[in-house]
């Protein structure tokens, strides 16, 4: 009896001490791990995802997600060269790779859903891109909005969330349109190109790509402004790592802050030399505080802007007017330009 009690005590003590040790490990932020390693491991793609992660002729990554990885690495280490490793991973691999430490953050057009947020032990930053489901239509029809396609036909991929979104939208707006469904993306696009339907529904960046690749030229097609539904894409880090999550949120905020204040990769040096306000002085690290509170160097925002530019530059280069897709920014613009994004307050 006494022996059993003793064993019980010892084992309780063991369990307790192991729990303490565990708590200490969990308390170690990924931020610290990354800084000690001197290198950021960021998510890439196994293949490509148009506009967000592509491979150029020389095998270098480019795209919105890749630029955000570069910004993060530049913010942490001054510049991304030599401090950033893009790890190619598949969709299925995203979450386990994050938990096992193969990557430090998932920046891979991943929508914020409730099950991911709660059941998978993931933490989302504020969204950096709103993936809208929109409609593309033949320019010859002269449609300005989806309502103009009343009485026409619309193609959509079968059994997807886009199909559901289209049905709901048509119902609420009382638009009478015939919905044709197709099994896969290629069939869908070909049916639309062959004018079997007046409009086609897809995720906006995919629509932009289909428009560019249209056999009769991009100008023969218009993307209508109606947003049927949307998905908010954020940066994902492990749960319970507030320090690392803060860095993600403030990185995104800094990119918007720079855009709102007209700071670009071209003029950032000039503005740093003559800051127009005390806030911008602080933002660019002329006066201390902006980086230190996060555990970073004070000029981290300057380093990011210097390397990848502000959010508008990132968008234009990869999806907008500076790219082949020429996708209008729409709701992905700053609030002042009719979008939904905004910087947080720098104080």
């Amino acid at each position, binding site marked *: 009896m006494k022996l059993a009690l003793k064993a019980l005590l010892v084992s309780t003590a063991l369990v307790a001490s192991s729990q303490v040790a565990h708590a200490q490990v969990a308390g170690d932020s990924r931020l610290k791990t990354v800084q000690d390693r001197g290198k950021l491991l960021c998510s*890439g793609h*196994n*293949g490509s995802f*148009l506009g967000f992660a*592509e*491979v150029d002729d020389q095998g270098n990554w480019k795209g919105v997600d890749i630029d955000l990885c570069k910004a993060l690495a530049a913010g942490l280490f001054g510049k991304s060269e030599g401090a950033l490793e893009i790890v*190619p991973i598949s969709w299925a691999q995203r979450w386990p790779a994050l938990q*096992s430490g193969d990557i430090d953050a998932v920046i891979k057009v991943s929508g914020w859903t409730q099950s991911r947020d709660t059941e998978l032990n993931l933490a989302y930053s504020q969204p950096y891109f709103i993936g809208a489901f929109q409609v593309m239509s033949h320019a010859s029809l002269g449609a300005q909005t989806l309502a103009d396609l009343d009485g026409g036909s619309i193609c959509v991929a079968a059994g997807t969330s886009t199909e559901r979104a289209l049905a709901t939208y048509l119902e609420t707006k009382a638009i009478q349109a015939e919905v044709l469904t197709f099994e896969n993306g290629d069939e869908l696009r070909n049916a639309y190109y062959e004018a079997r339907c007046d409009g086609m529904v897809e995720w906006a960046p995919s629509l932009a*790509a289909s428009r560019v690749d249209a056999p009769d030229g991009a100008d023969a097609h218009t993307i209508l402004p109606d947003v049927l539904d949307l998905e908010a894409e954020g940066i994902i880090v492990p749960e319970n790592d507030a320090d690392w999550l803060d860095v993600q949120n403030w990185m995104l905020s800094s990119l918007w802050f720079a855009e709102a204040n007209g700071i670009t990769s071209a003029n950032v040096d000039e503005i740093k030399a003559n800051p127009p306000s005390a806030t911008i002085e602080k933002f660019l690290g002329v006066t201390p505080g902006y980086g230190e509170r996060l555990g970073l160097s004070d000029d981290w925002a300057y380093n990011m802007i210097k390397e990848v530019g502000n959010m508008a530059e990132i968008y234009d280069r990869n999806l907008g007017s500076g*790219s082949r897709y020429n996708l209008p920014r729409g709701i992905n613009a700053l609030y002042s330009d009719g979008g939904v994004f905004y910087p947080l307050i720098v104080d």
Partner: protein
Amino acid sequence: MSFAADFPKDSAFNKAKARYFATPTDAVVSALFAAFAVWILWSLANWALLHAVFGANQRDACMATEGACWSVVSTRWRIVLFGLYPFEEQWRSAIACVVMVVVAALSCVPWFWSARRLPPLWIAGFAIFYVLMRGGWFGLREVTEQNWGGLSLTIFIFAAVSLLGMPLAIVFALLRRSDLPWIARTMALVIDVIRSLPLLSIMFTFAIVMPFVLPDWAIGDKLYRVIVGYALFFACYQAEIIRGGMQALPAGQEEAAKALGLTYWHRIGYIVLPQAFRNALPPTINQFVITFKETSLVTIIGFFDVMASGRAASGNADWNFATIEMYVFVALIFFVFVFTLSRYGAYLERRLGVGRR
């Protein structure tokens, strides 16, 4: 009296006439199929050759033509062959790939088929490959495994899986035939369990779940874990193929060898295995072909094998419309390797006289 004189002379024309135009129905069917075949070949040639654009960086010409856009291949072939390997260092990947192919080709030559020649050849081959690809020695820049890609990676995975898997398969087959029931039954269970799992889930488990379970020192790089997992899968299938070859042998042979006083290893090494391999040659070649093709499954754990590299090569703003051409190019690469493999298999069968007993 000779009947030979009654038959028409055996000219090519007469032969064709007898084969394809013997009756009016035959003639119509043959003509229809011939016309169909010509039409298919003509449209294919039209698309692939006559109206195709070949030069590099000719996107605009591609958009204008009806034909194939081989420009995507001539512009971005290096991505398919080398994946994400650093651009300036791709010569290393090229040499490493050639070394692997040469070693594989050499080990197909009968002169190398001995325990004293084959292992050193492969050890040297893998050593050169590793030093060239990985770098970090002799002033070569270090390139980690996750940046390996393209054809070199596919060939490396295939060679490593075959070389690890084959000896393992022999061991598994022998254990499964063991006289001790608990060994034979355990082995049978292991083989059947692994065979009943999809390769994809085995790869996923080895690449992604293993690091949570294994101690730190045993983790190694993802690439090697995947190779081990795949080799295990290969070995289980191949073990059953070898066992099939063994069971085709008359039991009397082994009994006679025992009666002569040969030891276990002599019986296996000189009597059983050589004949088992000869019996099992066709399915073994089959297994190699399948293994080569299934290496493209590693894309699910983020490796840039030929297939994923092909997708990345056509998947950008400039070339997204030319995916079919890129798939055709990748298919051609696979065809060259797999066809060579199956021709070599046919040569071996002739040489060993399989099916001529």
